[in-house]
């Protein structure tokens, strides 16, 4: 067997390992129910849940509660299945949390609370304008 063949086999083996480990480490987008089911089945894999902050009938955001020392925050989030769940975030409240149109929380479910390690916020128009802010007419 030539040396180049051995190298080739090793390279292919590593490439396959990379693919398997990528698939294994990849997270998934789930609903709160599925996250709960994962927790109950003993999995501690971190998952993504996509949703919005809970609003009352007047369209005001409700349930956002920073802790007394302001270093953590809990909030209510409705997932794409219209299910509401409490989310705990172990970091200070992101300043633009309440302006967000969409929230993605990454973390795991535990005892009725979703513990988020990371929050991704999708906020309306970040600089690329879709609506006009009329300031003054010339």
């Amino acid at each position, binding site marked *: 067997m030539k040396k180049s063949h051995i190298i080739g086999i090793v390279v292919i083996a590593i490439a396959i390992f990379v693919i398997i480990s990528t698939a294994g*480490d990849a997270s998934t987008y789930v609903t709160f129910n599925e996250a709960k089911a994962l927790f109950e089945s003993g999995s501690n894999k971190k998952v993504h849940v996509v949703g919005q902050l809970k609003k009352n009938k007047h369209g005001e955001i409700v349930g956002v509660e920073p802790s007394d*020392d302001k270093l953590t925050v809990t909030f209510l989030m409705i997932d794409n299945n219209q299910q509401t769940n409490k989310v705990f975030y172990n970091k200070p409240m992101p300043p633009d949390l309440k302006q967000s149109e969409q929230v993605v929380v990454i973390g795991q479910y535990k005892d009725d609370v979703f513990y988020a390690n990371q929050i991704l916020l999708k906020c309306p128009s970040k*600089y690329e304008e879709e609506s006009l802010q009329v300031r003054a007419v010339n």
Partner: protein
Amino acid sequence: MINLFIGNLGHLFVILSFVLSLASAFSYFKSTSAPDALKQKEWAVNGRVLFFLHSILVCGIILVLFLIIYNNLFEYHYAYSHASKYLPVHYMISCFWEGQEGSFLLWIFWNCVLGIILVLTNKKWEAPIMVIFALVQAFLASMILGISVFDVKIGSSPFVLLREVIVDPIFEMNPDFVPSDGTGLNPLLQNYWMVIHPPTLFLGYATTLIPFAYVIAGLWKREYMGWIKPALPWAIFSTALMALGQLMGAYWAYETLSFGGYWSWDPVENAVYVPWIIQVASIHTMIIFKKNHTALKTSIILVITTFILILYATFLTRSGILGNASVHSFTDLGLSGQLLIYLLAFTVVAIVLSAVRWKEIPTSDKEVSTYSREFWIFMGATVLGLMGFQVLAGTSIPVYNAILEQFGISSNMAPPPDQAIFYSKFQIWGAILIAIFSGTGQFFFWKNMDKSKLWNELAIPVLISLALSTVIFLTAGINKIAFILLLTAGVYSLVANSTILIRLLQKQSFKLAGGSVAHIGIAMMLLGILFSAGYSKVISLNTSGMLFSKDMSDEMNQENVLLFVNEPRVMNEYELTYKGQRIELEGIPGFPSKKIVRKTLDEHTVVATADYMYKGETVFGRGDTLTILPENTYFEVEYKKEGEMAFTLYPRAQVNPNMGLIVSPDIRRLFTKDLYTHISSIPDPESNTEWSDPLTNLVAIGERFFVNDFVAVIKSIQKLDEVEGVELGMEDVAAEAVIEVRTKEQVYELKPVFIIKDKMIGNIPVTEEELGIKISFTNILPQEGKFELTTATSQRDYIIMKAIEMPFINVLWIGTIVLMIGFTIAIVRRYKEFKRSA
């Protein structure tokens, strides 16, 4: 009145430049297939003239767009959404790369420059490579074409009017409406690194086309070996610029963003990293080929892969497929179809052409000896390829979902929850191998190495590096196996390459030193990354916090600290005090307190209400009118060590109506480490202060009372002859109470005013935001000798901040400079080789 002419002119230039690039490609193609030399020359001249005209028009487009931005023509969408009246001229250049159209324009511009250089320096290859160049230009120009053919939108023009993009009732009332100001450039981009980072990176991007064009031309014209010599200096140049561009971006992110580092494995960063690392592999295999004519097929594959990965990166970052925000992500302009065609067209052409010619490409069947330079370089290139593959596999996760959806399968795959861990745990092993190979490979500079010779050569560097890394290992307390190996390998690469460098210098062959200098740079960078990232320490860590559960304890530690104004807190070896909010005034040194200026109707102008001293000199006096940078607020944080004043940092926050709170760190730079501090949260400046129910205090002069838990006392009552903003008549009375409020650190003097005007009682309260108190002087009780003070309290001013220590980060930055020097030496050498052979 709307200036329609200038936009129409710009649009016309875009269309013409698109047509000219196609015409140039056609002429050059004719030249390659013409039967006789005369015809070939005629067509080539044609192609050249057309390409030059195309380039002139591209400069015209840039000039027109610049004039639109410079002259504040906010009737144009591009100017409205990327510029504003107060934007300094040097940042107007940055407007070009904030928008997607502008960044395409930059790319097109670089291709013009490169195309002209190639035309002027390489006549032999001109026609075939310029066919490819002109075609790429046509594809890029089509991205900003902005025309519709049969209802299919082709490209997005930078010259569209605001009223064409935005639906707003105001345009029905007045179609000629022009907003008085634009929404401005993203404040994060208002940084000098952002003026130079994108053009550098895009020049690197653009130059990947040159080796690709040479390869394709070589395959096409059956010049299977001739393309390497002219392509190599450009491949090295491109690699150097991409590295420089990425590191400038990393440095900008470190200084400006506040994720606590310089690299976050964001998809957009990965999209550059992957082609870059493949290109690094390709220059190494091209160098092997130049030595002994092996690795030709590998070089061809790697050069083609690099360019296709650049196209893939373009597709990823600009098509909107990445979805969730990344710092660089462009908004989706609906060009994904067009981008996909661009990607597939070149991929298919390159693969088909290589497949057709594959059998004809000369190969060498020689088995490569383990004791040859080629073997080690080849191993290094393999490792680089695998490192690139791993990042590509992870970054493409959103693409898998999109592809599966095309086949009707719903896929819910998400990126790994912790990207840094996912990528680094693999990349670190690659880095260890690269360090070992780059150290060892250099010893095969002189051929005919065998086992015993190699060990003789290696013995000293290996011993030195083992000794050195043991010392570092013991002093720094490294405990992870991968970290220990990276440390040892990095030190080994540093020592081995330095040994070679010293030998080269002794022989006075400095021009050959490019490789060893570049590898020293890489070794330094690896060590810098190992320490600054692997051993970064959160100083503001609060481990005493509640533990929610044992298996989550790591994540449940608080990494931020809450600081109330003027209330010191101990954080590791430092004592921190947040001193208050500071502002930035144009032309004024230092950071004056927010309290010493008064706002005016114009948000950019303020009036001083007190004198300001800086380093013992009065810079401005009370009543002076000053220009403020209204979006910036700085937060003065004083660091004390063992009771001694250590230093003061001014992390910044920008409150932006569109983007919320944008924070930038301030960094204390020491030789051995950086201390990095950023704001995580501040009280919402938009919301109104909520005051408690007022409390009434009846106090005499000198009597103590409490406000918000602070001790306060009336020092005196003074009669006032005039009160700002109130006209006092003969019968009217005004008095102020001078109240002293003490905190542990500071004494505040507040002067609320009591007025009897036209027999009516009134008062002017004072508010001290730092203390969260409001005091009103509401009555005088002469019989009892007491004064009525009404107090209310609110949240005191505070910041939540995070502080991180990054050891030896300077080794990374110095390594970067060394790497660039190495690249420069190598480029000069390879270009001279090409010139000599031409």
